[in-house]
């Protein structure tokens, strides 16, 4: 298992569009993807659970990836967490 903490950079938070982008990419990986925020955790392939994390700008979220292609998934998904969205 690999994990890393990322700080959400998008100034308007992590709403529908960033969540959609994240979940779509997460769903292409075979490994298990878990996102932790403020004591809650979500399945990175589920937009519903991701939304319930209530992620806002500058939150520090922990991304945990386990299984095949975990290193690559961590790296690519981490980029999405720290990206800026229009």
């Amino acid at each position, binding site marked *: 298992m690999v994990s890393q903490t990322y700080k959400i*950079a*998008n*100034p*308007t*938070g992590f*709403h*529908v*569009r960033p969540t*959609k982008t994240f*979940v*779509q990419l997460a769903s292409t990986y075979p490994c298990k993807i878990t996102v932790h925020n403020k004591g809650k955790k979500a*399945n990175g*392939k*589920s*937009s*519903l*659970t991701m*939304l*319930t994390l*209530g992620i*806002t*700008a*500058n939150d520090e979220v922990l991304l945990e990836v386990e299984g095949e292609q975990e290193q690559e998934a961590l790296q690519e998904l981490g980029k999405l967490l720290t990206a*800026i969205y*229009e």
Partner: protein
Amino acid sequence: MTTSYKGIAASPGIAIAQAVVVKQEHYVPVASTIVDAQAEWQRFEQALQAAKHDIERIYQLTHDKLGADHAEIFEGHLMMLEDPELIESVALAIKDEMLNAEFALHRTAQQFIQMLLELDDEMLRGRASDIQDIAGRILSHLRGVKHIDLSALDEDCIIIAHDLAPSDTAQLKLELVRGFITEAGSRTSHSAIMARSLELPAVVGVGQAILDVNNGAMLIIDGNKGEVHVHPSEQLLAHYEAEKLAYDAKQANLRKLVHEPSISTDGHRVELAANIGKLEDIERALQNGAEGIGLFRSEFLYMSRNTLPTEEEQFNSYKYALEKMNGKPVVIRTLDIGGDKDLPYLQLPKEDNPFLGQRALRFCLANPELFRTQLRALLRASVHGNLKIMFPMVAVLEELFEAKHLLAEERQRLLEEGIAVSDHIEVGIMVEVPSVAVSADLFAQHVDFFSIGTNDLIQYTMAADRMNKSLSYLYQPLHPAILRMVKMVIDAARQHGKWVGMCGEMAGDQNAVPLLLGLGLHEFSMSSSSILAARELITSLDQSQWSELAEQALQFTHSAAITQFVQQQLQR
């Protein structure tokens, strides 16, 4: 006989048409035990597929009719319908607990809705209604009843419903719908937002009685006042028909001005800009024809949190705003706290007279490290658009010099670190303290622009706390004392080839705009909703004529006389 109802004015305008009442039954599934889990699961899967087909069709329909932006919400719905956690939770309830599919889905959806409703973020809480919408659709398929179908309308109508979900409104033949009335809802509910973006009048939160109106009944919606009139009398109908004509014509004229420049009849061009307090406000500013951001209140970045924003966080926000405005000017005001705005995490000492205390630039200069962080973020962002930096609450030149000195130092440091900084960032000050207004000629050579903050300038000139209701009579934007100061600032700036803006309420005031134009104000920054009306006014005025009229107005002794004078001249 006319029956009238009062609700929330959710979207402006007037509509007159027949009612189509959408009856929605309120169905709550009850738990029952099933015998064949496999068959039940198949039943659920079929309903899920059918719901997906519906949404795909609605997505396409919306995409073709209203464009990709409006359709995006249904992409979200499709993702929810494919959500692994949702599906697994329903599957477990059916297969392990032997629950009926209706209840299994209902319980799962409610769990997610509950979790979302507990969040602080309003935008995320709003997603609860999306889950309600998709769950309702699957339930309709499970039960074999028709989901509300609004695609069968065949003549002009006004829709009356309990509330409307996104997938309901998406199917509307919009060319036939003249307005919405809902029993429930608020200004921020989906039907209200939808109505505003489609520019259809809407009144929401009218109450249950509205659902008893008969199909086909004649209706008037007054979306400006939040009123609904059923079976209007001939007299009322005639009144509203006239009002509707006038209103629609006015709106059509205003909308035409969105991409137009603000030029007076004699060819004098000014700039109409927006005041913003959050990044989300930028979109609305652009939709309302803003030619720039005249006041970006940077303090919002510091509020509603427990620590100071870092340089990186601020940089991201400034960059976002500059890029979104795509080369149009963005005037960012450095941190303005103190007065009525506190940052609890800084534990600032209480002051006896906070409005006369260590606020805004005074505070920043006393806390240079905090100020330097903001300046660095601004300088780094400057390469991403047309940035102008503005210092608030300057009273004496020393303050301006010190602020500019810190700015120059940070610029130098960044350049030494190899970080790009734009070399044409204009630097200006707010004119809020009378000392600056009356000695503007001494400041003009040291700034690129002035922006007159009228709310504070009036309070300091009249020595009247603007929060104190019993002194509200002293809040007089058109008082000769204020107008004369405005003139002093503009004249001083003009002599030095600098420009002057105004970012207080006064800049959008229909009685003040002609005088300000006449005095030579260059930039008018106001709430987004006032921009188009101000543009309409300015494009009908002769600047040189108002220049003379403004001189005359300055000789009156009272605000009331000046207001009356302006109104008389406008009616000529």
